[in-house]
């Protein structure tokens, strides 16, 4: 107990709250982009992860991710039911805050990650199947991957892969799982033949704004202390979001008019891209990471549209490709002058780090995409992924929940 630092603990309690807030923020970010008849359903897909994953994490999620490593692939069961996770610090992860606070902080990451995937299959997903999906996905994809990258003894961590706040664990895994899910579930009825306009862009802006704020906790908190590194992470986060938002706005301007939805989408992509790098790079590098993330995701989105793939809210383009760029960029721009515990990247003379980042990225993509694809095929065979055509036309608010967003 004597090692507890009040400043660190206070900051991490606040950061935990900030990251929790990102899930309802995401609900509004996505909820604004769907049609009116699916507004509640879409909000609910995000919100309900706060129920399901919170319980899963306490019961066994935390121990699968951060328990005693079993061969570097998954955590053992020593923290089952948060057994032995209490007020005393765990020096393996955060030596100056209660171990339970570390577990709670990590819980919020586990909660938001499956919610990110929901953008792929809004407006047609069968709720019952979805509940089973997030539980299985958290167990089979998120928890092992978190262990590989962050767990002591995890094999990607041992390899030297850098992921400050979850670019690979959260965003790449969600983005490529979204791609797999979209391929499995197929397009919405009338996709490409009838307009599917966002029903409330102000909701989306509200959500993006709250995500931006919450990301200070997501990245700043990942320093696991109230120190200079947390401030670097916070400033890098803000800088990359700003750069990516502006570049995205100019890209839409080039193709027509400066889009408001474009600016906030770009900002989120910038936040995604800086996530793995936030505690390893300089603010000047953060500008470049954000500025380059925007065209990468923007043209990934255009490619997705040209291929006529209904990955409805572009989770793959924004989180998958933005996260992939962030993981690689960490291998380019990382410098020990910011974080001694990190490594130098390619631009600081360490070519090997870029290779490590690329290998870790490919492994994460293959794992998340592969498991999700198999999982969705299996769930489709057992319960079906989609609602009936008529239920889809009526809208999921009424057909799945018997409620309407706007009376």
């Amino acid at each position, binding site marked *: 107990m004597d090692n507890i630092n009040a400043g660190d603990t206070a900051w991490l309690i606040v950061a935990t709250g900030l990251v929790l807030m990102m899930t309802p923020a995401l609900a509004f970010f996505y909820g604004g982009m769907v049609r009116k008849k699916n507004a509640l359903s879409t909000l609910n897909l995000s919100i309900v992860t706060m129920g399901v994953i919170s319980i899963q994490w306490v019961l066994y999620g935390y121990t699968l991710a951060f328990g005693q490593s079993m061969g570097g692939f998954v955590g053992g069961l020593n923290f089952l039911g948060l057994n032995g996770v209490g007020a005393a610090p765990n020096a393996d992860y955060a030596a100056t805050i209660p171990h339970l606070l570390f577990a709670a902080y990590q819980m919020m990451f586990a909660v938001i990650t499956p919610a990110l995937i929901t953008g792929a299959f809004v407006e047609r997903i069968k709720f019952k199947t979805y509940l089973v999906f997030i539980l299985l996905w958290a167990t089979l994809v998120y928890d092992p991957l978190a262990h590989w990258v962050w767990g002591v003894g995890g094999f990607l961590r041992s390899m030297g892969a850098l992921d400050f706040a979850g670019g690979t664990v959260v965003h790449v895994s969600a983005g490529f799982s979204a791609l797999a899910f979209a391929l499995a579930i197929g397009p919405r009825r009338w996709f490409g*033949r009838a307009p599917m306009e966002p029903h409330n862009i102000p909701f989306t802006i509200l959500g993006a704004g709250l995500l931006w704020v919450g990301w200070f906790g997501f990245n700043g908190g990942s320093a696991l202390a109230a120190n200079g590194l947390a401030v670097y992470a916070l400033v890098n986060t803000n800088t990359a979001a700003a750069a990516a938002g502006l570049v995205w706005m100019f890209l839409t301007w080039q193709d027509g008019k400066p889009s408001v939805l474009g600016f906030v989408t770009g900002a989120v992509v910038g936040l995604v891209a800086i996530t793995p790098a936030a505690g390893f790079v300089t603010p000047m590098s953060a500008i470049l990471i954000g500025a380059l993330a925007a065209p990468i995701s923007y043209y990934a989105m255009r490619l997705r549209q040209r291929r006529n793939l209904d990955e409805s809210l572009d989770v793959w383009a924004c989180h998958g490709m933005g996260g992939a760029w962030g993981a690689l960029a960490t291998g380019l721009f990382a410098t020990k002058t910011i974080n001694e515990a990190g490594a130098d990247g390619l631009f600081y003379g360490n070519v090997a780090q870029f290779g490590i980042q690329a290998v870790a990225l490919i492994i994460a993509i293959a794992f998340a995409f592969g498991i999700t694809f198999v999982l969705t095929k299996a769930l489709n065979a057992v319960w079906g992924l989609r609602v009936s055509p*008529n239920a889809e*036309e*009526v*809208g999921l608010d*009424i057909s799945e929940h*018997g*409620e309407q967003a706007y009376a």
Partner: protein
Amino acid sequence: MTKKIEAIIREEKLNDVKEALRRIGIVGMNVVEVRGHGHQGGIELVGRQGTYYVDLLPRIQLNIVLSDHNVEPTIEAISDAARTGGIGDGLIFVYPVEEVIRIRTGERGRDALTYEDDIDTRRQKIPVRNGVNGGNGVKVS
């Protein structure tokens, strides 16, 4: 003579009906979101303490103004596309229209109703291709 079709349909059938109308060449319409009920009453929705009853349901009202001879095919297209067989499929009303004026040009009557690729142009084109004069002689400007 000119008629106005006012069709009350299920919200979820709007895309199907629009598609069916587009296929026969109906290019102009306006759509109003309305609420109402016929003799079937309402539905139960779910709240946080169980269910409650909603008696006015959302419906779509389509307004289409067209020439007499196009009324029957249009009714047929709407009915086929909007029908589920369940109670609440809706109603179609047909009214006489006194006059139509296109504001931009001041055109009146049929001239104000015709467009490129509308239902009458199509009817003219098909017979011409087959070498049979089955058109109705409406001029398209």
